């Protein structure tokens, strides 16, 4: 399978431009100190993209290390339960390390080697990106430091342990809300003082240019495989594709190759948390406004003074006040629609997946499953809904036990 993104003439897929703009969104709002590293990264990435040997090495890693292609699986009992359109699952949970995050980290680790850097830093929320980064670094023999909010260290203890086993150093972040957003701040700060020796493997399609593009491209294998598998297994493309949106990387990877297939509806699902009041959810595309956070212009949860709001989701991977600029672009052009799913509904979807399909989905992915069930219920039996099952739920077992115990 080719790993270069589609280069069709349609303007909607021809983003970002050289300044990192997806329509009005994106760009680079970072201190001057980081510009040098970002320019270097953009340049090296473009060269790598056009280098057949880099692509061949990346493809080989995806196949033999990550375990791709991931299956497209028909969720028969879940479909019967909903009584409408067929529900198909794109099984990113079956990748090495149990989530889509590894698609990006092996790609960026390969890029790190190419740039001659031997040290990597990363941020993590759920710990999935941290584990995937630590894994890729172990594979290449790179030094790895992962910044993680104290609150997330508590919620995702098994992943913290795994990162340490993989040889990474986990640095607790105690500032602000002590979650993903603060971990990104801390990683950026660290990067400023070591840009010449260290690569920052950002874990989602957020941050300053060229990160949103690089991460999208590396995750696009999800959408490309889905297209090919749908043609083989469904006899054509699905009517609807659904993915959860934290920063938006699994969704961007699923949506991007489908952007020009305008017959396919693209639905992103944000974390609706406890409700629609500020502080109760993590749904910037649903409830926020355009603004600047973490080096990019995109939808964000901010107060009227421009201060980033605290957000809430039971799932650490979605507990983020911002979102990738390409999603803002897709929202503004109407190419994708975005909605949110509450903690409770995501938990119900988790339970159903466990009992009806024998699959423990990640709490993040459960948000997408919940929305897919809703969509499937309201559609014809002849329609097909594909859900990006971005990760597996083993990491969430303790947190789920705690939440259920309290409920």
């Amino acid at each position, binding site marked *: 399978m080719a790993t270069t993104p589609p280069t069709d003439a349609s303007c909607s897929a021809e983003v970002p431009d050289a*300044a990192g703009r997806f329509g009005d969104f994106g*760009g*680079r709002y970072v*201190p001057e100190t980081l510009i*040098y590293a970002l320019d270097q990264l953009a340049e090296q990435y473009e060269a790598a993209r056009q280098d057949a040997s880099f692509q061949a090495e990346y493809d080989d890693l995806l196949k033999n290390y990550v375990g791709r292609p991931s299956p497209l699986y028909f969720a028969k009992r879940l479909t019967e339960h909903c009584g409408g359109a067929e529900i198909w699952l794109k099984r990113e949970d079956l990748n090495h390390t149990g989530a889509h995050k590894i698609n990006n980290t092996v790609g960026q680790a390969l890029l790190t080697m190419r740039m001659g850097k031997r040290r990597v830093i990363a941020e993590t929320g759920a710990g999935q990106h941290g584990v995937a980064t630590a894994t890729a670094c172990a594979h290449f023999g790179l030094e790895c430091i992962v910044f993680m909010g104290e609150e997330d260290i508590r919620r995702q203890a098994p992943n913290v342990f795994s990162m340490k086993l993989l040889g990474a150093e986990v640095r607790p972040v105690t500032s602000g809300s002590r979650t993903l957003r603060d971990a990104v*701040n801390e990683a950026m700060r660290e990067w400023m*003082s070591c840009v010449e020796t260290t690569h920052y493997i950002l874990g989602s399609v957020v941050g300053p240019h060229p990160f949103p593009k690089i991460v999208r491209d590396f995750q696009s294998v999800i959408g490309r495989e889905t297209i090919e598998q749908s043609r083989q297994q469904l006899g054509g493309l699905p009517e609807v594709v659904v993915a959860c949106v934290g920063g938006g990387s699994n969704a961007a990877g699923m949506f991007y190759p489908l952007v020009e297939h305008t017959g396919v509806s693209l639905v992103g699902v944000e974390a609706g948390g406890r409700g629609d009041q500020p502080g109760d959810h993590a749904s910037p595309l649903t409830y926020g406004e355009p603004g600047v956070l973490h080096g990019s212009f995109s939808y964000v949860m901010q107060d009227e003074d421009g*201060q*980033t709001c605290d957000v809430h989701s039971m799932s650490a991977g979605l507990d983020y006040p911002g979102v990738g600029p390409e999603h803002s672009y897709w929202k503004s052009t109407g190419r994708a629609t975005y909605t949110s799913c509450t903690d409770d509904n995501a938990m119900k979807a988790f339970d159903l997946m466990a009992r009806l399909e024998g699959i423990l989905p990640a709490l993040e992915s459960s948000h997408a499953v919940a929305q897919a069930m809703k969509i499937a219920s309201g559609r014809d039996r002849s329609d097909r809904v594909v859900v990006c099952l971005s990760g597996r739920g083993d990491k969430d077992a303790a947190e789920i036990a705690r939440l259920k115990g309290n409920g």
Partner: protein
Amino acid sequence: MSAIDDLFTRLRKENRKALMPFLTAGDPDLEFTAAMIRELAARGASMCEVGIPYSDPIADGPVIQASYTRALNKKVKLAEILKTLGAVTPQVETPLVTMGSYAIIYRHGVEKYADALVRHGVAGMIVPDLPLEESPRLAEVCKSRDLSLIQLVTPLTPRDRALRIAETSSGFLYYVSIAGITGERTELPDELVERVGWLRENSPLPVCIGFGISQPEHVRLLAPVADGLIVGSAIVRRMETAETDRGGTLREIGEYVASLVAELG
């Protein structure tokens, strides 16, 4: 011409150097901010850099970040900060510049923010997360209002880029001494003197050095090669006691700043 241009014209004529202390607005409250600006002016500060607290300051080290958090926990708002500055500016000769994230400026509206600075007698702004490529519009807005837009050059900025930054900047160029975040340093890079010397020779704007400067020796070493020095974390660290001892904190900061001014030569 902004008040900053006037200041440097005068200082250059008198062969003197500028000292610009940084303080966080609203830590621990705006009354203290006003008192501190008056104190800094009385102790010989040539300008003051007023930090607008921001929830996600990626260029700042732990000391300034903690100060921003203290101010935000007290719910300080931009409108009140500007009102306070507006009340102080007529009382001091010292020009003020704000240092605030583009996240805040964008939320309020670029033109509205610039207009508000003018209305409250502020001479210019530093926007630490707005690099050259994103700054043309703000540069226009500032220019048409005689506000200085002070942009940053770092040790990692290539020379041709530094000159382009100088072209869109006004007031002075802010030379960041180290590739990193704000915070006191005992040692500053060896190449600093040479780099600043090159920039000063080749840019039409005055050049001030900031980040890491905290000790009288730094001032003695760097004042001769720059047009001014900026001191941030070393002052903000001294603000930590303001909540419990206002008078003592003010005096301590005043004496510290006076000791640095004395080294300017």
